[in-house]
């Protein structure tokens, strides 16, 4: 009876390096885009990708293969993004973002003071357009941090309101104010940068 084939033992460090390089090549840009959309700054997004891959290496025994590698890495990154949101919320800026009355686009009587031009194109066709995506990314990056945090957690990641309130340390009323203002700013930004040119 033949002896069972011996497992070739790869030195641990080589294994780690090969794994991580593979991850960086296969998922680095996707992780980066995921982070950038939420945190708005390249340097912070880059740091988050790095932290994610380092954490993933340490925890790779936990990767059961139940989900895809990408999904698993995104899961780690998601928690790190929330940590950034939490830290930012504790260092202020929220009061400013929810304070005062948002009068942009309206006159003193509360009537529209600017035109509301038509938007053309369906969401699907817009998302297929690389240039539109760039315009959207720019508008997202231009949002104040608390507004971007609120709208990405709620609208993209579908995190329940109560949890978002805890992360951002705001009341439900203030959370809604953040989301409403984020919508208004994005609507104005896209109208000005994209829909005006591409009517």
């Amino acid at each position, binding site marked *: 009876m033949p002896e069972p084939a011996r497992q070739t033992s790869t030195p641990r460090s080589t294994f780690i390096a090969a794994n991580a390089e593979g991850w960086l090549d296969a998922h680095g840009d996707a992780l980066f885009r995921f982070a950038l959309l939420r945190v708005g700054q390249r340097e912070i997004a880059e740091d988050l990708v790095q932290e994610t891959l*380092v954490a993933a290496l340490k925890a790779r025994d936990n990767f059961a293969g139940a989900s895809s590698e990408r999904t698993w890495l995104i899961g780690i990154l998601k928690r790190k993004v929330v940590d950034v949101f939490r830290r930012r919320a504790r260092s202020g800026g929220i009061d400013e973002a929810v304070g005062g009355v948002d009068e942009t686009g309206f006159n003193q009587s509360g009537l529209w003071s600017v035109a509301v031009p038509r938007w053309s194109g369906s*969401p699907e066709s817009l998302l297929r357009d690389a240039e539109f995506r760039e315009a959207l990314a720019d508008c997202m990056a231009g949002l104040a941090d608390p507004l971007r945090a609120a709208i990405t957690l709620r609208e*993209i990641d579908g995190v329940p309101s109560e949890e978002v309130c805890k992360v951002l340390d705001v009341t439900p009323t203030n959370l*809604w104010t953040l989301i*409403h203002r984020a919508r208004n700013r994005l609507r104005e930004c896209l109208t000005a940068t994209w829909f005006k040119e591409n009517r």
Partner: protein
Amino acid sequence: MRNPLHIWRILNGPCRDMTALISRSMDERLGFWKRCGYKLHLVYCRACRRYRKQLLTLREIIRGADSEAPQAAGPTLSPDARKRIQDAVQDG
């Protein structure tokens, strides 16, 4: 029962108030009079009708912003960052 003046104010709010109701209606079910207020307003206000349509479009766009673009467009890690991350990962 709400007092009639309050109801009258909801039904006759200016566009600024109506846009807030429109946005809010996307996140929760509004009370009867608030729903009546903005729906009635939409019948005669073209700007607010467009506003509402744009918010709905915006929601779909934002939700799709994470999906990979077919042409794999979008920002990528800079070569510097890539090198830095590679080094950091190798150091464990």
